[in-house]
Structures are given as C-alpha cells and as structure tokens.
C-alpha cells in the first residue's frame, strides 16, 4: 500500500501541506526499501529519519495550533502523541528483530491508514478553523 497525495488533502497552509507531501514521500520510500529487502542498516536509517521528521512536523503543527488558539488542540495533540508512541514501538521492534512480517504489515497498513485518516480528517479540521479565523 502506498500513500498518494491528492489535492483534497491540502489544508491550505503551504508549510504544513509541503510537510505532509514530504511525509507521504518518505513513507513510500521506506515501504519501497522494505519491499526490495534492502539491508537493515539502510531501512533503519529511513525509519529513524521518518521518526525525526514526524516529530518536527508535529511540533510545527502544534505550535501553529497554539498560536491560533485552536480549540481542538488537546485532542489533536493526543492523536500525535499516540502515533509517536506506536511508531517508536515499531522502530524498536525493527531494531530488535528486523523486518519481521508483523513489522512489515503494521508499517504497510497502520502507518498509511493513520496518516491518510489523520491528514484527511483531523488536519482538515485545523485547516478549516485557520481559514475561518484568518479570514
């Protein structure tokens, strides 16, 4: 399963939209690397980078929400937190056991599903709020 960017996923904030597109590219790059059975070292670097990029991106979104006094901030932040925790567990499982079927399936299904859903649902809510309040 791959992630495809579609225009309806844009939330209307150029910086955040660019980060989402990058995120999609990175996830696809990671899945490709695993599909091609590239070495654990190479996949590990991609996974680790994805984790860091996600953390930076969430931080950027959260500071945007705080600045805008977004009422959905807490719930949104908790979603980020949950995702971060699961991704960290997954990275740990990969570091310990490599690309086991369980890890590969979880990355393929859960990661893509979560991102698609979060961007097309929770992030759209933020986008609408920003569009309304910023005029």
């Amino acid at each position: 399963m791959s992630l495809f960017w579609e225009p309806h996923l844009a939330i209307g904030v150029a910086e955040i939209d660019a980060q989402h597109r990058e995120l999609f590219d990175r996830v696809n790059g990671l899945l490709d690397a695993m599909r091609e059975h590239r070495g654990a070292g190479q996949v590990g670097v991609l996974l680790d980078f994805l984790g860091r990029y996600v953390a930076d991106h969430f931080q950027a979104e959260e500071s945007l929400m705080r600045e805008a006094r977004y009422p959905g901030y807490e719930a949104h932040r908790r979603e980020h937190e949950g995702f971060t925790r699961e991704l960290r567990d997954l990275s740990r499982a990969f570091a310990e056991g490599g690309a086991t079927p369980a890890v590969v399936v979880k990355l393929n299904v859960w990661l893509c599903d979560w991102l698609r859903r979060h961007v097309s649902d929770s992030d759209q809510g933020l986008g609408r709020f920003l569009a309304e309040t910023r005029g």
Partner: protein
Amino acid sequence: MAIEWETRLSVGVKLIDGQHQELFRRVNALLEAMEASQGKQEVGKLLDFLKQYTVEHFGAEATLMARHRYPQAAAHLAQHQEFVKTFLELHAEFVRTGPTALLTVKVNRTVCSWLRQHIGTLDKQLGHFLTQSGALAVA
C-alpha cells in the same frame, strides 16, 4: 535522497562539468550525514566544505565569464548571489537548530532543485557561449 549527475546536465566545458560533479558529491555527502543523524559537528563540517566549494566554483565561473566577456554575466552572477544568500540562511538555521529532519528536507529541496535548474539553464547557456565562441577549444 540524492542529486544525481545526468549527461543532459553537461555544459560541454570539462572544467565546469568536473566542478559540478564534485558539487553533487558534496551535496550528497551532506544529505547522507543529515539523514543518518550524524552529529552537529560532523554535519557542520560538511556544510562548511560545501559552502567553500560553492564559493570557489562560482569564482571559477565568474573568472571565465570575465575573461571571455560573456554578455549574460550580470544575470548569471545575480543567480549565484541569490543562491549564496539562500545557503547562508540555511546555514544560520543549522547553527540555531542543528541538523533537524525539517532542515534536512529543506536543504534537499532548495539546494538540489536550484542546482538542477541553474545548471540546466544558465550554465548550459554559458557553456554554449564558451564553446561556440571558440573561447575554450580545450577546457
């Protein structure tokens, strides 16, 4: 994530092509280090290398332009200057934040796309001028 040399990027002047290829190698080394989250010091060193090499390379191109009275020199040098400014901004961000993932992507997007675009247009025009005018029979 890398910038790859392609034959269509050749400007037909050996000296410049060689420097462009070296530039690509240095950009890739920097991006690799940033992706693999090597330390700030290591990444800083690579960033400094790249800055120095870019300045030298721009200098070499400027010398060729001046020596052969290249009519489009002003526009070309303005793009170099613009790039140096962008690069310094990225460098300042690096000093502030370290090699974050966001910065890694920003470096990749800005530097790689600028290089491809600049080499594919202005540098090719310069190469064409230098080879057509017979300025550099063997460069």
